[in-house]
Each structure stands twice: as C-alpha cells, then as structure tokens.
C-alpha cells in the first residue's frame, strides 16, 4: 500500500512496544493489535547472521522433519523385559531421564530411584550398599534417550524391568518405556522403601504377564488414535491422562479377562489401571519418542527432537545436530503444591516427559485440557493463550492432535529452535513436581518455560554445521 493509499484507507495498527499507545488508539476507535514482543536470546557473534543466510535451507529441512513427525504412526506392540529389547541394555546399566549425568551430580530423587533399582535388581543388599555401588563405577549410567527409551521423572530403567515396546509403523523405528507405578511412594520420585520394591515385583510378576498376554490377544494398538481422541476428551497426555487411560482400559479389559487365567489377577490388574490416571503417560511418552526419533539427523534442521531434564540440567537435541546434547540449568516449576509443601521443597525440573511437548502435546496442547487450567492461572482463556503462543515457535500444526476449542485446529507441533531464539519465546511445559529429597514423592504439579540456554547453545551448534 503506497503512502497515498494509506491516506485513503482506514488506519489499522500493529502496536509493538508501549501498551499505552494501544490504549490511546482504542480511545480514538482505531483498530489495532498489540504485539507482545520479547528480545531474541543472546547468541555468539555471527550466529544469527549464519542462521539468516541459511534460512531457506533450514526451512526446507524443517518442512521435511515436520512431515516425518506428522506421518508418524506409533503403535503399542507388546511388553518385554528391558534387557531383552532395549538397544545396548546391560545388567549393570541403569538408564535415567534427561541429558547425561554422573552419580555425583544426580539430584536427590534420581539417586533415590537408582538405589531402588539396585535393590530391585538384587545388585545391592541395602541402601548404603547401593550408594557405594553406584559411586564405585561398577554400575554404568546412560540417558534413556540414547537407548530409544523414555522415562517419567527420574526415568530409571534397569535390566529386569518390563517395558512397553512401541513401533513407528511408518518408519520402522521402536521406542520403549516402563509401566507407570501410580502415585504415592514410587520409584520415579526417588522412593526406594520396601513397599516400593514390593510393588515393582508385583508389576514384574503379575501385571507384566497379564498385560503381555492381553496384548497378544488385542494385537497392536494404535496410540495416535487414542491420543487424538483423548485430546477431544480433555487430556493433553502429559499432566492429564485420565481420558486416554480410560480408552486404553476399554480396549484391554476384555482381553485381560479372557487371557489372564486367574480372575483375581485380572481384577487386580484392572483395578490397578483404573486407580492410576497416569497409566497412559508411559504410553504417550514413548509414542512421542517413536514419532520424533524418525525425524532425527536431517541436515540443517533446527527442529527439536528431544527436550528433557535430569533434575539438574535441561537438555535439548536438534534433528540437524545428531546426538549432541545442548544443556542448561533446569529450573524449579511454578506449581500448585500439595498441602504441607512449598516451592522450597521442590526439585528442579526432571523427567523425559517433556517429550510430549516436543511432539505438540502436553503444555503445547493445554488448551485442550480445561480441567487442569488451575495450573496455568485458573481460566480456560489462560490455557488457550499458552497454546496460541506456542504456534509462534512451532514449525507446523498437527494433523491428528486437535484442540476442539480452537475449532479443531491442529496442535502446534515441531519446536523450531531458531524461532525460539529469535522470538524469545520458550517452550511451555506442564509437569509434575518432585520433592528434592529422595523418597518423599510428588509434591505438586505446575508449569514452567524451558530455560533459554540450551536453545541458544543448540542453534549455535547448528550454525557450526551450516
């Protein structure tokens, strides 16, 4: 529009900066949009220029990566012992959530979970013994993510634990995750008392064989389909999995009854699933993992394929930067705390569960989950604004996962690290909060933004490869 056309048209303003100017415009009835601007992150000199020079190359790579993510078809195919299926799994190897971390640097809940795993595996006689073994170098540690696996909170996986096996049928890659133990004193929050180990043993000896038989009966289960339905039923499959768990229950129940043999066992298994609204979390997570892993190693792509936390550090991996980790300090979530707990009790952010956000779910789909909006300020509108903001940093919109309230718009999917850095908008995560001491368990649930540092480092890493 030329200057003279401007003179002859209604003035319509994009206001960038002082909000009072927008208010003045409203006072004189001028239509305007206020832009909530934030500065770009600090980057090493020249990096932004490199990214801009290669912007069309990056864009093309991202288009390719998004397409792979949208084409992903994660199916639940069975359940096996970790040692038998997880690539690289060994008897003395313990997998953990987040980017790599040593025993010395592990946070309280993760250490507790390691102790629990060593007791469970019979590799230690008592907690003290477990600590010694963990520190001795006898036990090896590795991130779940480096073994096609994900784990919520501490994310500890040891050799004898049963794990769901998933397959991305479009691309043929697999993913793995343990079964969710429920709430209360549980390993993933760092508890390792007798009742924790007893429950894990029950899961191994009763739950595992029952589910295994049932899955043979049901055949492969389409998880993308369940997640898509659950989003229409008020889940975002990170902090709320009630609908998805119910849908899975409906699928499994007849098969369990037909195949379990002992009716007491089938009843207890069904009661266990019924009693744990987060049972499906350990399927939504590996479903996302299977989907995103297929989009790895696309040269020049700035799309995040991993966002994860180990309770001390927040780690990011990009499609275009291979297996390199980019990390920064993990922050303490802004949370609603269970009675008796405060922010002072909270451990910094922990768990692989932010893989859901990486795949356009969880915090990115919070507008689909009005039941949990008290975590984000209390109104459904707050939740919607969070989801809307995430479209700014997403490379695409999901073809299966939709937000009913946004007229079934696809969820913002595929986090573009360049957009994150340029616009200064951080991925939004809704999550559970662990007590910083091992064994206390969950103390609240809340939200937080990813820290900026891993994203700045990640695009710097990408720029080096361009």
């Amino acid at each position, binding site marked *: *529009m030329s200057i003279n056309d401007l003179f002859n048209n209604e003035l319509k303003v994009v206001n960038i900066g002082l909000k009072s100017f927008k208010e003045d415009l409203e006072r004189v009835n001028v239509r305007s949009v206020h832009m909530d601007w934030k500065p770009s992150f600090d980057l090493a000199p020249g990096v932004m220029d490199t990214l801009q020079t290669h912007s069309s190359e990056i864009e093309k790579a991202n288009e390719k990566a998004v397409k792979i993510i949208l084409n992903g078809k994660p199916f639940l195919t069975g359940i096996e012992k970790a040692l038998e299926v997880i690539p690289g799994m060994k008897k003395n190897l313990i997998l953990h959530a987040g980017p790599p971390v040593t025993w010395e640097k592990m946070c309280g809940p993760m250490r507790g979970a390691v102790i629990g795993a060593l007791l469970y595996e019979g590799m230690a006689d008592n907690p003290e013994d477990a600590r010694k073994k963990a520190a001795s170098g006898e036990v090896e540690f590795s991130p779940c993510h480096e073994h096609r696996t994900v784990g919520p909170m501490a994310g500890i996986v040891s050799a004898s634990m049963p794990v769901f096996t998933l397959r991305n049928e479009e691309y043929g890659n697999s993913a793995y995750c343990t079964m969710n133990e429920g709430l209360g004193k549980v390993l993933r929050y760092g508890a390792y008392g007798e009742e924790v180990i007893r429950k894990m043993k029950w899961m191994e000896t009763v739950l595992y064989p029952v589910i295994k038989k049932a899955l043979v009966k049901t055949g492969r289960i389409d998880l993308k389909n369940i997640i898509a339905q659950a989003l229409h039923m008020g889940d975002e499959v990170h902090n709320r999995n009630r609908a998805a768990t119910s849908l899975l229950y409906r699928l499994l129940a007849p098969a369990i009854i037909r195949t379990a043999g002992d009716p007491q066992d089938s009843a207890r298994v069904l009661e266990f699933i019924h009693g744990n609204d987060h049972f499906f979390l350990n399927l939504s997570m590996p479903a996302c993992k299977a989907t995103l892993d297929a989009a790895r190693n696309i040269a020049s792509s700035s799309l995040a394929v991993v966002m994860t936390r180990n309770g001390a550090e927040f780690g990011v991996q990009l499609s275009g930067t291979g297996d390199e980790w980019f990390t920064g300090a993990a922050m303490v979530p802004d949370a609603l705390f269970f009675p008796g707990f405060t922010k002072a009790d909270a451990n910094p952010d922990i768990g692989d569960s932010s893989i859901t956000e990486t795949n356009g779910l969880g915090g990115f789909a919070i507008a689909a989950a009005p039941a949990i909006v008290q975590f984000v300020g209390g109104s459904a509108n707050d939740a919607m604004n969070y989801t809307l903001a995430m479209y700014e940093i997403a490379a695409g919109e999901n073809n299966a996962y939709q937000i009913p309230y946004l007229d079934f718009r696809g969820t913002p999917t595929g986090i573009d690290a360049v957009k994150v850095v340029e616009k200064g908008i951080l991925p939004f995560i809704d999550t559970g909060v662990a007590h910083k001491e091992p064994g206390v368990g969950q103390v609240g649930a809340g939200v937080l933004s990813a820290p900026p540092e891993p994203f700045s480092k990640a695009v710097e890493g990408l720029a080096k490869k361009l």
Partner: protein
Amino acid sequence: MADVPVFGVIKKGEYFDSVTLMLVAKKIGETEGVVDSAVVMGTLENKSILEASGLMTAEFEKARDTDLLIAVKTGGKEIAEDVFQKVDIYLKDVRKSDRSALEFSPKSVESALKLMPDANMALISLAGKYAGDEAMKSLRKGLHVMLFSDNVPLEKEIELKKYARNNGLIVMGPDCGTAIINGIPLAFANAVNRGDIGVVAAAGTGLQEVTSIISNEGAGISQAIGTGGRDMKKEVGGMMFIEGMNALARDGSTNVILLVSKPPHPDVLKKLLGHIKKVRKPVVAVFLGGDNDLLERDGIHTASTLEEAALRAVAISKYEARYENLNDVSGEMKIAMLMREASRYMQGLESVAERLKTSRSKIAHRAFDESKKMKTGQKYLRGLFSGGTFASEAQLIFKELAGEVYSNIPLKPKLKLKNPLKSERNTVIDLGEDEFTVGRAHPMIDYSLRNKRIMEEALDPEVAVILLDLVIGYGSNMKPLEDIVPAIRQAMQTAAGDGRRLAVITSVTGTDKDPQNRAAVIKGLEEAGAMVMTTNAAAAQFAGHIVKILGGGRLGGGK
C-alpha cells in the same frame, strides 16, 4: 553517599519492557531507607547507567540482555531484601494481568498480521537496539512504520528508509514522537480538526505546536507526518521528508503544505528545493534558525517561528478554499474574481504579519510592567522545556531580544552548559535529552524532574523568569495541573519569602479537544499565578523582553 552499600539481584531470563520496570522502580524508590535504586534489563547501556549512578555490582557485569537486574542502594540489608520481595510481587502482578488479558497478544509481526491481515501501520516503541530490526520486519510485510524509539543506529535508519523509499512506504522516525495520520493522533499528538493543511516535520514538538495552533485558529490538518530529526542530516538526506512532502503534493485532501525542521544540511536543502519546485501547491517552511533567503527565492513562504508558520499556513488555507469555488465561473468574471482573491490572499498574509507585530508590541509593554515588580538583582532566564523544538525556538527568540543562552542543546558549542544540572546566567534546558530521560519516563509524562528543577531555580536570587512549556494531548501526562501546579505555587512562594517576584511564563500546546482540555489547563495555570502565553514563541518573547529590561542580557547578541 559513596559509602552506602549497593545490594543487587539478577533474575535470569525474565524480560519486562522498560515502562513496566520504570513503574516498579518508581514504587520501590519510595521505600523508606532506600537512597537510590534501579530495576533494569542487563543490557550494556543499562549497565553503563548503573555504573554512572553508582549502582553497579561485580555480579551485574556478567548479566546478559535477557537478565533482569535489581539494584538497591541502602544502609540496611533487610531493607534491600524487602525491596527485592516487593519487586517480585509487583512483577508477578504485571505478569498476571498480562496473562489474564482476554485478548491473545501475538508475539511476532507475522502472527499479528494473521489476526489483522489488513493492518497498514506498525507503531514501534521498543528499545532502540531492537526497534530497527522489528521495523525492517514490518516494512518487509508491507507495513508503513512509525518508529517512536530513539537510539536506533544511523546505519539502520538509512537502511530502513532506503527500503521504504524503494517500496513506496514511509518510515516516520526513529525518534518520531508524533504524527497524525488520517486524523488519528499517533503516540504524542493532539486532537486537531481535520482540514487541508498537510504537515511534514523533522521536529516533534514543532509538529504538535503547528498542528495545535492551526486547529485552534479554526483551520485543520489533512496529514501530519513526522520524520525524526536525523532525517534532514546529510547521511539520511531527507529521504522521508521528501517522500512525505511528495505524498502530500499528490494527496487530494491537502491544499497547503507546511514544512517544519531545524535547518537542513545544505545538500539536503538543495535536494529538497529541487522537489519543492515541482510541487504545485503553496508551501510554507519554517526551518528554525535557518537562512530563509534561498527558500524565498524559490517562492516558498517562510517563517521564523512555529507560530508564524502556522498562521501563514492558515491564511493560505483560507484563500485556497475560496479559490476552489471559482471552478464554476469563467471568462472575465473569473479573472476579476481571481484578482480579488489574489488581493485577499495578500491581505491575509499581511494581516498575519500585522497581527504578530501587534502581539509583539503588547508583549513588550507587558514585559515592562512585569519587570517593575522584580527585586534588584533579579535578571536571568531559566527555561525548562519538555519539548526539544521549543527549547531551540526559545533560544533563537531570546538571542534576538536579549542575548546568548547557555543550554544542554546550545546554538553554539561555546554555550554548552558544563553541567546540565546546573544553570548559568541565562539558561535553557531540554529535559527530553538522554542525560535526563535514561531510565525515566519522558518529561512530558513525568514532571517530577522538572518540578525539582523549578524549585532549585526559584532559590536563585538572580533568577527573574522561569520559562516553561506544557504539552498536552495523547501520550503525555493526563493530569498536568495536578502535577505541576504545586511546584509553581511553591516556587513563587519561596521567591516571595525572599521578597522576590518570580515570573513563571508558559505556553500550553494542545487543543480543547485533547483529553486534558487546553482551556481548563490554562485556567488552572493562571490561577496558580503562572502567565500563560498563546504560543511558545510568544512566551519566549515575553521572557526575552523582561530579561532585556532587567539588564540580564548581554554576553554577545541582543540589540
């Protein structure tokens, strides 16, 4: 106060805009026991401000642009802790009210355009280091830009303006505080009548003054385009000034073009004159302090004050309006009528000259009366301005009448104040300059610094006149009387206590349609004892005469 310790905290990755932070800083500054404080983002500029104001800590050195820095200078650690907590609460409230806003705020130009695909203007008021990039993004999306921000690098300004010129767009600014587009006041601007006078101004308050005078005279504005002061410098070459003028030349609703600026660089003036020659509409130009000969040779109407320029434009506008009515007649009748209109036209311009002459002589007489009320020894002017153009105009007028003036924006380098916080002899201060506005709202919004200065000047027994400007309208202080009257009263009382009569002279720039209402503001000021003149030029003349009579002039200049 160097021995008072400074306590600091860094909040990583928490961005807030500077206005929000200023409001928070203002609140915590009022805390008892706090000597000084700052709440700023950790940019290099802000760090140097902290350094300069003695609020730097070793820890802050490492802070990055996206870190929030809170510094408190206070004797007690508990007070500092208390302040940190308060800041947390204030900022949380801001976040909360932002988040709960029903309307979704987009985070980028692209998504703003998804919400409003037919937007045609970006109004940008970010910090200068960021503003240029957002302006370029907006231009690339086909938006015209008003760039309110200052401190945009010169190279960036040139890049933006070249891009705009090549794509038929306008960039108003950087450092463009005011514009009126399609009758809509943007940023700091007044509610003026619409009419047929189009304005291009490279001087912000100059634009406000001429558009307000025009409106108060019963004429009106078609468009008022600001370009930012740097546009007329050699490096920028008047790119947007010329584009703006040419757009007005093509605009069917504009009959008279009024140009306002400080004297352009000679190369720019030459280029501009080349373009003006092609304009087939009357052009009035006021290049404050410039040489008018060159302009007049090219048939351009000139003026030496903003007031004169506005009145001339109004006189021509009235003539132009009647000229249009001649379209229906022809032949000798038309010639006769044209002659008559031409003589009326001349009369109109002459009447402007006559009116200004009368007004000047009235002012001189009033100055004589006023000077008689002064105590011996009172002789100097202290001009405290919120508008930079007004400060310049006042110096030019004062120099003609009484002599040279010290200033932080002096007419000559040798008249530069050593310390802008300390007046010398006759002094005019532009409180809108960076040294006063960093970390603080503009003096048109926040009067506190000027009020403090008014009080200081009132204590000086040699001061006869305090000359002010008061700019109302959108963007500026919404309760001007409430904020300035106590300072005026107190200053006059302080002087009176010492047996002195202090002349507080001001003009009020704006209109009765402005939210603050000019007439009401004038009434309030007069009740407080201030003498309100119709324009800044008249106020400066009044002040000049008084000082001249009292013998405070000299030091070069003066007649």
